[in-house]
């Protein structure tokens, strides 16, 4: 059962990543090409659908499947870049605080507490109002705000690892502090960080969709899933599929990442248990 769900998660994430990477070749139409003669065509399995547009078209006559594929690219990009940024910040802070303890740790804990007190959406709103919205702004906003879980986990796991004998043994063998942090401690807390990374990635993708829905995320006409839902919400009573298609895509991707994360946690948990 566990294996099955991990495999399911892996194949969902793998498929989405492949689609995102190969959108240029896989997409049947240009995602930006409008065709006002072919607006609001339902998907092929509904009445009035056509095999030309498998998932139908939106209010401007753009092919929905193509937009979905290009939207996957935005989601994956945001997810990965955000996690890399926040992971770097959080891990650096957490490992530093956990290893050195004392005043340094107090400072790190203070930073984490401060971060927890910052309302994400409000900050995003302010940033977009000041700088304007773009992919970079969304990645940086999320990346600079989502690091606290990395910091908390890196800090506690570092505290556990730093007192184990091999760290003392490394010092007794003449290792420098950077060496101990990077080569002795980091590899041993990596499994925990990977699990956090998957959870954060799912969160980042959902937050991007939420921000785009509010008009604070990536600007149109970029095909982001959140933006697709936002643009379609006016038509949802007569053509519910316009929000269903990107909604289901979002749901499936986040579910897949979470399943994969769960599976990884069990897998890595077993191999690191001693």
């Amino acid at each position, binding site marked *: 059962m566990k294996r099955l769900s991990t495999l399911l998660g892996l194949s969902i994430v793998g498929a989405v990543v492949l689609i995102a990477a190969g959108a240029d070749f896989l997409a049947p139409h240009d995602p930006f090409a409008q065709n006002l003669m072919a607006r609001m065509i339902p998907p092929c399995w509904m009445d009035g659908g056509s095999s030309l547009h498998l998932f139908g078209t939106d209010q401007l006559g753009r092919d929905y499947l193509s937009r979905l594929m290009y939207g996957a690219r935005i989601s994956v990009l945001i997810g990965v870049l955000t996690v890399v940024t926040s992971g770097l910040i959080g891990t650096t802070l957490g490992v530093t605080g956990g290893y050195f*303890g*004392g005043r340094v740790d107090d400072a790190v804990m203070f930073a984490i507490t401060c971060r927890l007190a910052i309302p994400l959406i409000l900050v995003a709103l302010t940033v977009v109002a000041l700088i304007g919205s773009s992919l970079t702004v969304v990645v940086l906003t999320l990346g600079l705000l989502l690091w606290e879980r990395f910091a908390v986990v890196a800090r506690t796991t570092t505290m556990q690892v730093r007192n*184990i*004998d*091999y760290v*003392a*043994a*490394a*010092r*007794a*063998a*003449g*290792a*420098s502090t950077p060496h101990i942090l990077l*080569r*002795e401690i980091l*590899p*041993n807390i*990596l499994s925990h960080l990977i699990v956090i990374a998957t959870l954060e990635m799912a969160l980042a993708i959902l937050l991007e969709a939420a921000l785009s829905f509010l008009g604070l995320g990536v600007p149109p006409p970029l095909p982001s899933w959140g933006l697709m839902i936002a643009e379609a919400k006016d038509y949802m009573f007569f053509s519910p599929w316009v929000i269903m298609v990107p909604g289901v895509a979002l749901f499936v991707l986040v579910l897949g990442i979470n399943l994969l994360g769960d599976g990884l946690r069990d897998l890595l948990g077993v191999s*690191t248990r*001693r």
Partner: protein
Amino acid sequence: MRPVLEIENLRIGFPDGTAAVRGVSLRVHRGETHCLVGESGCGKSVTALASMNLLPRGATRSADVMRFHDEDLTRLSERQMSRLRGARMAMIFQEPMTSLNPAYTIGSQMTEVFQRHRRATRAQGMDRAAELLERVGITAPGMRLAQYPHQLSGGLRQRTMIAMALMCDPELLIADEPTTALDVTVQAQILRLIQTLQRELGLAVLLITHDLGIVARMAQRVSVMYAGQVVESGSAADLFGAPTHPYTRGLLACIPIPGKTPRDQPLGSIPGTVPKTGAGFAGCAFRDRCTYATPECAGTIPRRTVAADHRIHCTMVPA
């Protein structure tokens, strides 16, 4: 001959006010095993850590003399110190199960020390590691080098730790209870190994233990520690032949000797507990448990010479 490690009047304090070590002096010579023996918490491990400058944060250290060959350890910077550690002075820890990093293979951990201190290539390091694994009695070293610590038994790991300590030909080997975590047969093998290596390589070994059996077997010189002080020191023959300090005598009375210890009689024990030796503590720390205690014992305790190189820290005048 100059000792490899010379410590004079070492004092170590912890931030909570405990005086962990109160004036310890010891010398370790080349080709000699010096045993530091004492019960848990008497400061023997801390003494070893202090000589490698690896004390926990917040601990304070002072010493009149602390010398490794010609290097004044009290004056070395952290950078100079880490150049010594692992290269000229090496240490083996008590717990072989946690002393190896689970994230790396045996080979890469062993090679790392060599690469760091000798600026050697990885291939040279691997050759050296294989040679040493064979030296410490591990068969198929090539296979072991590629394995991870969890694939090795406790005895094998401790052998690996010893091999790793020897990578850069150290002059001083500090072994902090190297066999406590191992079962008795493996313990005997490891001790024999340390003995052989010491003889062949002319190492100076500082062996920390609470087991007088190990001391009797390994030591040329012994320092008995109690509550942060060396109460008696001398050659192993002197110490076992003519134990003088009441604490040493008490310790030896606790050990049954087949054929010598009378049957049907309880073994010796030392009544009481170790006192707290914080700031302001004066006199002999053993006086409350000592059958020979006199009012003098609350004053300054003199160092007395029993025989050449056999000293006690006691008010008693040796006969």
